């Protein structure tokens, strides 16, 4: 396994972990008012700290793997033409997914704005950010979370494409 493939695996795991940790918490919040509350600021700060530590930990793991496989931990493998093609394909797939996701967010904004009866009937379950996202009305903080979700999914798509391309051949 090349160094670039290892980096892709670690980046995928770190991004999936942080994305899940963030959205599992945010989507379950009671309404969009919680997104602007003081608890959100503390949560965002915690998220940044976790992201920094995850970045440091992943770099350490990569270097340890490189030492164990007999390589020089200071040596960075150069990208060759196949790596560059794989990166281009990964970026293209991520871009396509991002465009589709942003178009979906815009469609959702339009639907919730002009069709108040959009979506399945609301249940008696307590309203969460996820339910507000599906039914509207969509406020600024909710739209920001939806766009962040689109960016996270596009990033995951990039790393998955890279790994699949390295595994199955270009």
């Amino acid at each position, binding site marked *: *396994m*090349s160094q670039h*493939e290892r980096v892709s695996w670690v980046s995928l795991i770190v991004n999936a972990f942080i994305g899940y940790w963030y959205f599992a918490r945010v989507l379950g919040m009671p309404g969009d008012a919680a997104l602007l509350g003081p608890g959100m600021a503390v949560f965002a700060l915690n998220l940044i700290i976790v992201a920094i530590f995850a970045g440091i930990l992943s770099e350490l793991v990569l270097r340890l793997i490189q030492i164990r496989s007999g390589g020089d931990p200071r040596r960075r*493998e*150069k990208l*060759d*033409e*196949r*790596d560059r093609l794989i990166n281009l394909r990964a970026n293209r797939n991520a871009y396509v997914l991002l465009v589709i996701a942003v178009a979906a967010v815009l469609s959702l904004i339009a639907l919730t704005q002009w069709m108040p009866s959009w979506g399945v009937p609301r249940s008696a379950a307590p309203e969460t950010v996820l339910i507000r996202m599906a039914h509207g009305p969509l406020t600024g903080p909710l739209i920001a979370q939806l766009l962040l979700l689109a960016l996270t999914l596009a990033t995951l798509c990039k790393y998955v494409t890279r790994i699949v391309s*390295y595994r*199955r*051949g*270009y």
Partner: protein
Amino acid sequence: MATEVRNQIRKLRFERGELTQQQLADRVAATRQTINAIEAGHYAPSLELAFRIARALGKGIEDVFSYGDPA
């Protein structure tokens, strides 16, 4: 995913004193994984890389690479 570009790299490496994939990769400024992917028929190299590989193996490009089913 297989490519239509066939190659004799594996055979020629051993004819050149058991040249390893890593040694060949270093000579042509590619990674060992790319040489492995080319050998296995999973990746069709650019014309430039194909020329570099052929030169590193001391052969012409048509001695190393061919396209489609062997006639």
